[in-house]
């Protein structure tokens, strides 16, 4: 288990630093503390590692005593737990999920498979390195990591949040072009998500030197405007069970 040192994080000044306003600093510290002590996690059971989360959450290891509790929808969550190998099909959903979450948000890759593909390194169906597609804050390696390891990893994340070090979510905005490029490479050129990351980056003043680039230009080129959600999924021709003899 280690914090990610090899991800090239673009250096950026701490937003609270240098203001000189003591009250603002105290306020920021308080918010960082509360953020670290209250983590709502969205555990996307992408793979095997999901089986060690129920023990970590329930009576024996009880994450709630650390302020960590499971949440159901991405809007409510702070941490995206990616628990295991990510197949290409799942990865698309993970990215959609991640982009729906509210910042500050953190990604934890559990199991070796999220680090480098693990034992499925030669599988045609799984994506290998999660940090190519999402800004990962913490990897918890193991096949699968024990509940103790999961909790230890979460505690380290809490420490990082408290110190204000764990803010890779800014990295997603600042280096969106890099992440989008990797996503496009895997999913095809016309890959697009319903969330407008560039617009959000502009709105919240999170633009970085690599937010825009060749891949976002490609996105503009292929982007279809967001449409109202069509109420059809091609289910009309399915047999209706009630008409069939029971």
């Amino acid at each position: 288990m280690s914090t990610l040192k090899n991800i090239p994080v673009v250096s950026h000044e701490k937003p609270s630093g240098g203001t000189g306003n003591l009250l603002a600093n105290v306020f920021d510290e308080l918010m960082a503390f509360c953020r670290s002590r209250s983590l709502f996690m969205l555990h996307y059971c992408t793979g095997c590692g999901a089986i060690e989360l129920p023990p970590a959450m329930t009576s024996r290891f009880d994450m709630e005593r650390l302020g960590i509790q499971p949440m159901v929808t991405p809007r409510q969550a702070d941490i995206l737990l990616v628990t295991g190998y990510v197949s290409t099909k799942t990865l698309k959903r993970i990215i959609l999920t991640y982009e729906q979450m509210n910042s500050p948000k953190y990604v934890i890759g559990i199991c070796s498979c999220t680090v480098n593909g693990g034992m499925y390194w030669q599988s045609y169906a799984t994506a290998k390195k999660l940090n190519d597609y999402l800004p990962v804050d913490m990897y918890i390696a193991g096949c699968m990591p024990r509940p103790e390891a999961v909790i230890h990893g979460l505690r380290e994340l809490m420490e990082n949040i408290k110190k204000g070090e764990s803010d890779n979510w800014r990295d997603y905005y600042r280096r969106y072009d890099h992440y989008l490029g990797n996503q496009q490479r895997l999913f095809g050129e016309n890959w697009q998500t319903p969330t407008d990351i560039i617009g959000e980056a502009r709105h919240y003043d999170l633009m970085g030197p690599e937010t825009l680039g060749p891949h976002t230009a490609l996105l503009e080129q292929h982007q279809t405007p967001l449409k109202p959600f069509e109420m059809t999924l091609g289910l009309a021709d399915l047999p209706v069970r009630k008409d069939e003899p029971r």
Partner: protein
Amino acid sequence: MRPENYQSVNHPPSNEFELFFGPNHPGIEGNYALKVRVNGDEVTSARADGGYLHRGFEKLMEGRLWIQNIALVPRICVPDPVPMEVCYSLAIEELGGIEVPERAQWIRVMQLELSRIAAHLFTFGGHAATTGMYTPMFWGIADRDLILDLFEELSGGRVYHIFNIPGGVRRDLPPGYLDRVSKTLDYIESRLPDYDNLLFTNKVFVHRATGVGVLNQEQALEWAVTGPNLRATGLDFDVRRDDPYLVYDQIEFDVPVEQAGDAWARALVRRSELKESLRILRQVVAKLPSVGGPIRAPIPNPLAWNLPAGDVYTRVESSKGELAYYVVSNGGDKPYRVHVRGPSAMHAVQVLENLVTGARIEDVAQIMFSLDACPPEVDR
């Protein structure tokens, strides 16, 4: 605070709408999806959507040695991994003509039943949680952890044991292990009345589960339903008894059967199976000290092991149903083809789609969990 690109979405007026259950939804077991079309509160059609857990196991296995695949197979069903190892080992042993020593067979039975108890304890909690009762989940998973502790002592792994290898098991039991197994069994048995009080006699739960997802015997046979779900429809069939493998023919146990075929009957069958598994384990614990001999048949160097050409179909009873492996060898050191027939491949696709259609929204999750479908078996 609104992003600049925000645009409102206009929905056409309609009685019907579509709901996504999954892939990331507490009402769905694992990473699986169900799209349902709803009219009012009633589901009018449903469509399962799998493949989120697809790793291409069958392709991976063709590229690895016979013995390497032992590490791969338990990943196919995460909550109940031991039957996967045993079934694959049985296939290799049949292909290679290896006779498994009796002691190893008893140890395998012990693992299989421990794993079944663990899987069922996990399932109860999930089933109760879909109806809004979380306490059985907390209790069940905590009690399941004791069994994982036993596995950890035996094999070093809590969830994936990789303890069964072709020819037998990896190591003999640690000293005093059977006492600890007995102690854990005593504890779990003492907890069963608590579960009965909390869940199985809980009026609200009985009310919720009765008449939900009814599957009659004819349908069950038609849709190839197996395992506890089949027994809940009244058919008295168990692979352990009727197509025996290992030493199950020397063990006394009953096959619990219920007639109603609904979610409640399925829960009750699992509850009774818990008791039968405890009974089997007691017999194993009593028998194991008297069974001597080796724990592993001599096998050739596993790194250069060519199995004779042929094919074999082995099946075991996992906690979900009938688990089968079709293994083909062309005389090489790697499998030529492995086909995994997971029990949930049937339950989670066709049976689920059919049971959910006509059900109500609040019962969709309950139907999925009462079928105990395990998505990785579908996707492989």
